[in-house]
C-alpha cells in the first residue's frame, strides 16, 4: 500500500501549512468519489474475470449497489465529509489536551523557572491591566448614567488660556441656550442646572443650604427618578416667577425631617417664600461633573434661570447638558451649535470657541497626559516582561534540544513541535494573566489611593468586563509574542547532531543565541528609557517644589463663606467675621480675595490712548477682586508703585475700582517701556455696553502661579478692590499650620452667625500638595514601573551570561586546568556581557532621547534632554547590568576542571 491520500489537488506541504485535517470539504468529496469509482471498477473486473461480459458486469455492479449510482454517491460524499469533520475536531482536541498535560507536567518539574516566568508575566500584565482600567475610566468611559454616552456639555474654550484649568473653558449661559433649545436638530433635549444658596425656614428653624435650580427635564435626562413622590413637570416651572415646589435630597430628608413618610406635601419656606415638597431624590444625587457637594434641595426653573448661575459662585458656573440624538456624532452637533450661536448677536464676543464636551473630555489636560505617559510606560514594561520570558524559554529550549530532536525523529513535525511550544507559552501567559488580575486589583487600589484631586473620577475605577477582556487579549497576545521565537526554534535542531554530540556551533544554537542577545539589548534599552522618563519627572517634581509661586502658601487658609440676608446685613456680618478672625490666636492677618493663583478670567483690558496715539489692550485676562490688605496677607510682593489705600472703594458697576494693580507679566505686555504706574486702564466693554470708567494703576506686583503649574508664561492679572458681600472669599494668614488653624477658623465664623455657609477650608499646604499631585502621581508610578523594568533587565543579563557560562563549561574547565588566572576567566565572560550592555545603553539613550520629548509638557525646570539625568541613568543601568553579569560569571570559578574533563 502506498500513501497517496495527499494527491487530491492540494500539495502536501501546502495542506500541512494550513493545517487542513486530511481534507477540505471538496477533498473529502473527491475521496468519496474515488472510493466509489474504485469499488465499482474492482467489482466489474472481478466479474469479468469470472466470465461475464463487461456490459453485463457493469449492469450487475450497478444492481448490487442497491440504489441509483447518483444517490449512492451523494450519500457517500455526505458520510465522508462528516467523518473528516469529526476526525479533525477530535484530533485538535486530543493534541491540545496532550500539549497541555505535557506542559503542566514540565512546569511542575521546574518550579523555579515556572514561578519566575509566571511572576514576570503577572507583573507585566497586572501593571498593564491596572493602568488600562485607569485609561478606561478617565479617558474612555462616559458618564455613569443610562444616557451618559449621549450627554455633552456646551463649553466655550479659550485658546489664550490653553492648559490653564482656571480660564481654559467656561460654561455657556444666557440666550444662546434658548436658541439651541428651539433650533438644534442634533439633540433631543437641553437641560441645565445651577447651584445657588438659600436660607431654608422649616418648622421654625433657619438653615443655609445649597440648592440647585434645574430644568424639569434634568432628572429624566440623567435617568434618575425620585425615591419618594414625583419629579418636576413643565407645569412646575413658574414662568418669570419664583418656584412653588421643591425636591429635597435624601440626606436632608433623613437629617432634617427624620425620614418621615408624610414628607410629600409639606411646606417649607425658602428665603421667605413658601414651597411645597413634592419628592425626595436618591442618596448622593449631584450635578454631574460639578465637583461640588451634592445640593440639599432642587427647585425647578426654565432653562434661562437654570443656566444663569444663581449666586455667581466662585468656582464653576451653571452646568448645561445636551442629549445627542442616538447616532449623532459629537462633531456634527458641535457644528450645528456653533452655527446657531454665530447667528445670535453678542455671543461671539466672549473670545472663545464653542465645543461640545463629553465627560471624558473634562479630564485635566496635565492629568490626561500623565495617564498617557503611564500607559506607554506599562506597555514598555509588558514588552520587557515578554522579552524576559522569551529569554527564559529560549534558554530552556537549548537544554531541551535533545528532547525535541528525539520527538522530531519519532515523527513529530516541526509544526507540531512549534504548536507544542506555543501551548506552553500560552499556558504560561494565561497563568500570568490570572495572577496579573490579582496584581492589577492591588495596584489599582494603590493608584486610587494616590490619585491626584484632578483625577477624582478615578475613585470609581474598577476591573470591569471591558478591562478583563483587555487582560485576556493582552495575555494571549503576550503569549504569542514571547512564544514565537522559542516556537520558531523548536524543530530546528538536526536530530543527528544533537544525539551524536553536544553541538555548540550548530546554526540553530547560534541563531537562538543571537535572538537572546537581541532581547537583552531590548530589555536594557527599554528599561533605560523608562528610567530616564522617571528621572526627568523626579527632577521636575523637585523643581516644582522649589518653584517660586509669587506668594507664600504655607500658613495660608482660604475660606469661602456665604452670608444670606439684605445687603446691609451681609456687609455687617462680613465685617464682624473679619474682626473675629483677626482677634483669633495665631491669626496674623485676614483679607478678602481668593487664594492666589485662583481667580476669574474673562475681562479684557485696554489702556488710554497715549500721546503717540497708541492704545494697548489684551482680550482676556484674570481679574482678581481683593481687599487692600490682600497683598500683605498673601505675601505677594510689590514691585513698583504703592499698595492701594485701605479705604473701602465705592461700587462702580461695570468698572474696576479707581485704583488697581497689575502683575509684572501684564505690565510687561502693556507697557514694555516700563511706565505702568500712573497709567489709566479700564475693562473692555461688551459690544452695546457703554464704556467703563477709568482706573489708575497704582502699583505692579509679583506674578503668581498655581502650585504645580509649569507654564512658562505667567497669567496676566489685574487686581481690583471689590466690596464683597454675600459670597465672601477670605484669605487668612496664620502663624501655625493652616491645617491646625482650620477648626478654630470655622468656630469663629459660626460664632458670628451659625447659618453662615462655609465651603471646605483650603489650607495653603493642601493647595501646594494638590497642585503637585498630578506630577507626583505620574512620578511615583513611573518610577515604580522603571524599577521593575530594571530588575527584569538585570534578570535578562544574568540569564544570558549564565547561559554563556554553562555553554562553555568545558572550555573554562580546560582553561582553569591549564592554569588560567580565575580573574581573567571572569573578566572574559563579563566582557561578553559588556558588549550587550553597552549596546543596550546606547540604543536606550537614543530611544529615551526620542521619547522624552513626549514628556516635555510635563517637565519643569529640566530639559527633555537633560544631560545630567541621561548620564546618571546610563551609569545606573550600566552598574546594575554589570553586577547582574558578574554574579553568574563568578559561577565559572566554581567549575571543577577535573569533572568537566571527565564529562568529556
Amino acid at each position, binding site marked *: *500500500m*502506498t*500513501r*497517496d*491520500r495527499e494527491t487530491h489537488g492540494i500539495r502536501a506541504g501546502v495542506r500541512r501549512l494550513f493545517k487542513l485535517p486530511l481534507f477540505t470539504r471538496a477533498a473529502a468529496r473527491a*475521496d*468519496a468519489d*474515488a*472510493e*466509489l469509482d*474504485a*469499488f465499482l*471498477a*474492482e*467489482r466489474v*473486473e*472481478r466479474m469479468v474475470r469470472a466470465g461475464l461480459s463487461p456490459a453485463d458486469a457493469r449492469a450487475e*455492479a450497478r444492481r*448490487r*449497489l*442497491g*440504489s441509483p449510482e447518483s*444517490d*449512492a454517491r451523494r*450519500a*457517500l460524499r455526505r*458520510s*465522508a465529509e*462528516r*467523518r473528516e469533520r*469529526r*476526525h479533525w475536531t*477530535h484530533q485538535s482536541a486530543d493534541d491540545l489536551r496532550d500539549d497541555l498535560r505535557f506542559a503542566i507536567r514540565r512546569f511542575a518539574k521546574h518550579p523555579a523557572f515556572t514561578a519566575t516566568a509566571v511572576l514576570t508575566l503577572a507583573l507585566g500584565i497586572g501593571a498593564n491591566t491596572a493602568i488600562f482600567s485607569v485609561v478606561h475610566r478617565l479617558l474612555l468611559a462616559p458618564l455613569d448614567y443610562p444616557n451618559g454616552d449621549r450627554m455633552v456639555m456646551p463649553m466655550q474654550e479659550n485658546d489664550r488660556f490653553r492648559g490653564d484649568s482656571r480660564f481654559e473653558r467656561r460654561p455657556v449661559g444666557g440666550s444662546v441656550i434658548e436658541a439651541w433649545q428651539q433650533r438644534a436638530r442634533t439633540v433631543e433635549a437641553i437641560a441645565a442646572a445651577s447651584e445657588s444658596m438659600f436660607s431654608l425656614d422649616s418648622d421654625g428653624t433657619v438653615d443655609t443650604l445649597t440648592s440647585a435650580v434645574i430644568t424639569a427635564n434634568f432628572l429624566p435626562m440623567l435617568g434618575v427618578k425620585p425615591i419618594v413622590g414625583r419629579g418636576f413637570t413643565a407645569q412646575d416651572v413658574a414662568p418669570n416667577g419664583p418656584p412653588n415646589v421643591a425636591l429635597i435630597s435624601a440626606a436632608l430628608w433623613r437629617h432634617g425631617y427624620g425620614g418621615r413618610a408624610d414628607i410629600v406635601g409639606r411646606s417649607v419656606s425658602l428665603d421667605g417664600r413658601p414651597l411645597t415638597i413634592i419628592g425626595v431624590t436618591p442618596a448622593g444625587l449631584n450635578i454631574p461633573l460639578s465637583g461640588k457637594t451634592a445640593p440639599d434641595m432642587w427647585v425647578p426653573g426654565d432653562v434661562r434661570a437654570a443656566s444663569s448661575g444663581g449666586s455667581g459662585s466662585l468656582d464653576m458656573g451653571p452646568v448645561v447638558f445636551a442629549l445627542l440624538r442616538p447616532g449623532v456624532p459629537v462633531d456634527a452637533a458641535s457644528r450645528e451649535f456653533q452655527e446657531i450661536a454665530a447667528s445670535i448677536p453678542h455671543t461671539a464676543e466672549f473670545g472663545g470657541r464653542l465645543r461640545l464636551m463629553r465627560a471624558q473630555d473634562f479630564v485635566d489636560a496635565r492629568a490626561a497626559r500623565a495617564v498617557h505617559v503611564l500607559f506607554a510606560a506599562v506597555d514598555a514594561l509588558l514588552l520587557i516582561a515578554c522579552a524576559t520570558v522569551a529569554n527564559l524559554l529560549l534558554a530552556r529550549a537549548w537544554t531541551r534540544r535533545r528532547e525535541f530532536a528525539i520527538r522530531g525523529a519519532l515523527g513529530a513535525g516541526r509544526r507540531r513541535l512549534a504548536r507544542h511550544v506555543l501551548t506552553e507559552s500560552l499556558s504560561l501567559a494565561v497563568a500570568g494573566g490570572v495572577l496579573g488580575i490579582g496584581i492589577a486589583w492591588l495596584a489599582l487600589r494603590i493608584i486610587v489611593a494616590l490619585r491626584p484631586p484632578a483625577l477624582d473620577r478615578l475613585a470609581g475605577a474598577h476591573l470591569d468586563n471591558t478591562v478583563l477582556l483587555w487582560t485576556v487579549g493582552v495575555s494571549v497576545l503576550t503569549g504569542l509574542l514571547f512564544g514565537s521565537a522559542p516556537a520558531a526554534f523548536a524543530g530546528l535542531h538536526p536530530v543527528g547532531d544533537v544525539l551524536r554530540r553536544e553541538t555548540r556551533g550548530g546554526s540553530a544554537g547560534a541563531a537562538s543565541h543571537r535572538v537572546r542577545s537581541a532581547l537583552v539589548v531590548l530589555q536594557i534599552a527599554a528599561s533605560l528609557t523608562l528610567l530616564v522618563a522617571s528621572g526627568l519627572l523626579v527632577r521636575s517634581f523637585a523643581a516644582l517644589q522649589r518653584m517660586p509661586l509669587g506668594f507664600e502658601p504655607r500658613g495660608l487658609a482660604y475660606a469661602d463663606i456665604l452670608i444670606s440676608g439684605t445687603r446691609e446685613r451681609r456687609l455687617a456680618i462680613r465685617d464682624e467675621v473679619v474682626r473675629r478672625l483677626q482677634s483669633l490666636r495665631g491669626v496674623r492677618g485676614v483679607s478678602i480675595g481668593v487664594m492666589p493663583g485662583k481667580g476669574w478670567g474673562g475681562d479684557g483690558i485696554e489702556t488710554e490712548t497715549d500721546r503717540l496715539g497708541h492704545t494697548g489692550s489684551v482680550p482676556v485676562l484674570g481679574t482678581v477682586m481683593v481687599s487692600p490688605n490682600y497683598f500683605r496677607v498673601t505675601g505677594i510682593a510689590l514691585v513698583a508703585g504703592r499698595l492701594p489705600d485701605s479705604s473701602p472703594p465705592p461700587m462702580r458697576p461695570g468698572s474696576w475700582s479707581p485704583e488697581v494693580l497689575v502683575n509684572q507679566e501684564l505690565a510687561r505686555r502693556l507697557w514694555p517701556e516700563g511706565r505702568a504706574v500712573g497709567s489709566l486702564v479700564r475693562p473692555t466693554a461688551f459690544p452695546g455696553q457703554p464704556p467703563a470708567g477709568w482706573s489708575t494703576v497704582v502699583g505692579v506686583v509679583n506674578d503668581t502661579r498655581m502650585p504645580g503649574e509649569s507654564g512658562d508664561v505667567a497669567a496676566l492679572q489685574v487686581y481690583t478692590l471689590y466690596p464683597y458681600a454675600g459670597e465672601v472669599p477670605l484669605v487668612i494668614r496664620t502663624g501655625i499650620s493652616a491645617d491646625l488653624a482650620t477648626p478654630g477658623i470655622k468656630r469663629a465664623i459660626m460664632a458670628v452667625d451659625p447659618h453662615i455657609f462655609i465651603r471646605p477650608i483650603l489650607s495653603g499646604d493642601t493647595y501646594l500638595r494638590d497642585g503637585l499631585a498630578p506630577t507626583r502621581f505620574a512620578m511615583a508610578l513611573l518610577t515604580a514601573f522603571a524599577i521593575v523594568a530594571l530588575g527584569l533587565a538585570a534578570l535578562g543579563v544574568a540569564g544570558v551570561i549564565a547561559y554563556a557560562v554553562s555553554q562553555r563549561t568545558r572550555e573554562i574547565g580546560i582553561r582553569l586546568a591549564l592554569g588560567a588566572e580565575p580573574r581573567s576567566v571572569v573578566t572574559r565572560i563579563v566582557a561578553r556581557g559588556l558588549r550587550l550592555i553597552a549596546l543596550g545603553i546606547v540604543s536606550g539613550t537614543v530611544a529615551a532621547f526620542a521619547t522624552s520629548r513626549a514628556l516635555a509638557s510635563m517637565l519643569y525646570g529640566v530639559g527633555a534632554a537633560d544631560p545630567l539625568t541621561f548620564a546618571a541613568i546610563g551609569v545606573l543601568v550600566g552598574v546594575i547590568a554589570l553586577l547582574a553579569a558578574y554574579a553568574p560569571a563568578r559561577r565559572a570559578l566554581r567549575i571543577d576542571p577535573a569533572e568537566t574533563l571527565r564529562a568529556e
Partner: protein
Amino acid sequence: MPLLKGTLDVLVLKTLSWGPMHGVEITTWLESRSGGRIDVTDAALLQALHRLEERHLLAAEWGVTENGRRARYYRLTAAGRARLRAESSELIDHVKTLTAILTARSAEA
C-alpha cells in the same frame, strides 16, 4: 435474507478482524461466509465503513489491490477490536436466548 438492524456493523468488524481489506474484499468475504444468504447492498456497506471510521473503530488508507487498482483499505483499530468482542458476545447471547425460546416444544405441539 435481509439483515437485522444493527448487525451489519458487527459483521464488518468481524470480517476485518482477519486483516485489512478493501470494500469489494469485505463484501465478497461476507457473501462467501454466509453462503450467499446475506443480502447487503454495496451502497449500505460503503456507508457503514465511513460510519465506523468516523467513530475510530476502523482506520483507512489508500492502497493498491492485487489487480493493480487503487482501493481504500480498512483495518480494525484497537477500539474496533474491543467493540467487536463486546458486540459479538452480546449478539450471540441474544441469538441463543431467542433460539431457546423459539425452539421450545409447546404443550400442544
